[in-house]
């Protein structure tokens, strides 16, 4: 007979954190080794042990904080708008066959356009501004949410629509709020979570626009061969990402508490 097995390592938060740390340490060790043994050519990858010094330099020279703050503005707006519109358009397309047919081709034309190409239009429409950077970020986030939402809504079990119909709850908004949304929530939330990372991935491209921020600092640092500084900015981004991802995971768990587990 089975008994409830719990393991410190995978069940206790501290155990999990330690395991996570072990993963990171192993990674850094391989990195340093690659660097030290010359397996990766000299100069091509940064030295992990020089990172703390670089961090201090970036901090002291007053580049880090303004860049972080500026990027956060792009991030929050871009992520917010991209998520909202991706969700709305995806939901609309999946629930109305007219909308779906009307925009199907257009979506396929616009979908693969890269953020870097959108930068050109962003300049034309928003000049060089935070709005432009947010726009470019929003594009990337938009599509991820669009597809996740579309697919989640399409996959709602029709038996719930029957139920809504049987109890006179078939108004579009009513059905959307009480049936479609909760039924597709797992898929939609998974898309949103992907978008939280996607937004950071698009940051450099967005800030090529000419607005200051971490993306621009990374780009400049890479231009003068300061790879340690590049890594510092990546780590800062990772930190902010980890925070937002963790918060979102909590939120997701709350929203989906009705699921059996």
């Amino acid at each position, binding site marked *: 007979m089975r008994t409830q097995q719990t393991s410190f390592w995978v069940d206790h938060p501290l155990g999990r954190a330690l395991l996570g740390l072990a993963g990171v340490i192993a990674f850094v060790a391989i990195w340093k080794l690659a660097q030290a043994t010359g397996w990766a*050519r*000299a100069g091509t990858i940064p030295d992990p042990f020089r990172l703390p010094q670089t961090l201090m330099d970036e901090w002291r020279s007053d580049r880090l904080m303004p860049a972080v703050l500026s990027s956060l503005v792009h991030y929050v707006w871009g992520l917010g708008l991209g998520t909202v519109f991706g969700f709305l358009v995806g939901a609309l397309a999946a629930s109305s066959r007219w909308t779906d047919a009307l925009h199907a081709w257009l979506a396929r034309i616009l979908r693969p356009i890269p953020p870097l190409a959108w930068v*050109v239009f962003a*300049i034309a429409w928003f000049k*060089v501004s935070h709005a432009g950077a947010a726009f470019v970020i929003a594009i990337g986030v938009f599509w991820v949410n669009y597809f996740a939402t579309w697919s989640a809504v399409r996959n709602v079990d029709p038996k719930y629509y029957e139920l809504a119909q049987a109890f006179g709850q078939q108004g579009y908004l009513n059905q959307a709020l009480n049936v479609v949304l909760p039924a597709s929530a797992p898929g939609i939330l998974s898309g949103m979570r992907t978008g939280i990372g996607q937004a950071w991935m698009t940051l450099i491209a967005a800030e*090529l626009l*000419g607005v200051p921020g971490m993306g621009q600092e990374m780009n400049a640092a*890479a231009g*003068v*061969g300061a790879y340690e500084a590049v890594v510092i900015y990546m780590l800062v981004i990772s930190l902010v990402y980890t925070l937002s991802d963790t918060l979102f995971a909590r939120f997701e768990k709350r929203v989906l508490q009705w699921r059996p587990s």
Partner: protein
Amino acid sequence: AEPVEIGYMPIIPVSQAFLTLDEDRLATIGIQDPELIQFQNGPAMVQALLAGQLDIAYLGIGPAMVARAKGADIKVVASNIVEQISLVALGELAPYFASGDPATAFSRFATDKGRKPVIATFPTGSVPDTVLQYWLRKQLQIDPDQVEVIYQGAAQVQQSLLTGAVDGAAILEPIVSISLDRLPDARVVASGSEMFPNQPGAVLVVRETLINEQPETVQALVAVHAEVSRLLREHPEQAVTAVQRYVGGGRLSAAIVQRALENSSAHFVDDPRQIIDGTRAMHDFQAELGTLKADVDLDQLFNTRFYETLAP
């Protein structure tokens, strides 16, 4: 033997490369079927050099210094161009340079328009950025905060000028010529020689192993380089076809290419000795600005021997 790898960026300052890559000229040098790699930006080229790729490369002096400092065994054997960066100003800003002292143009603009002029250039630490800063600080001797500098890539600078998102740009050919062509009220308000006299631009670098193993090839390469540089200086119109094939992927009209080449013709200086002092000045200025992260030994960067053999 493995094919020789030649890296370049498709920009006017390395026009020598496009002429050299002509079949007949390559045959003279003794390079058969080289592998050509076209780069879109300097950092990628630096990485390729560090990773051990590329035997011959045409790139900016900035990336060349970075690559050398990071440990790439490369030598500058010839120069391509000097003083190639100009300040293009658009309709609103240009008149302030026509009507008075350039040193006060920005402040007068700010007083009239109630905002700082916006100037686009390449990322912090790039050659155009350095030249712009040098001009503001050393030549005009004004507070650099009088202008708002924004940092972009080539495509974005181009688009910013065309849409009027900026008031001007410190930038290279062919963007200068395209802007002048498409925007009737755009003007070059400061030329390269005004902004940073003897400022080094693109250079020809060769890997040390190639120098050691095939000195005769390098010698021939430099000889051809000198020959095509003379052509560019004296008959830029003859270079149009070759250059047009590469710059902008062949999408520029011959007229614009010719205009860009003619604007630059006087700057196609091939003697590496002429840019050593300029390079030092630039290096020191970058160190002063704090944008130079890498420690480079300038004496090790140049190898003028091949050029000296040609023109003692």
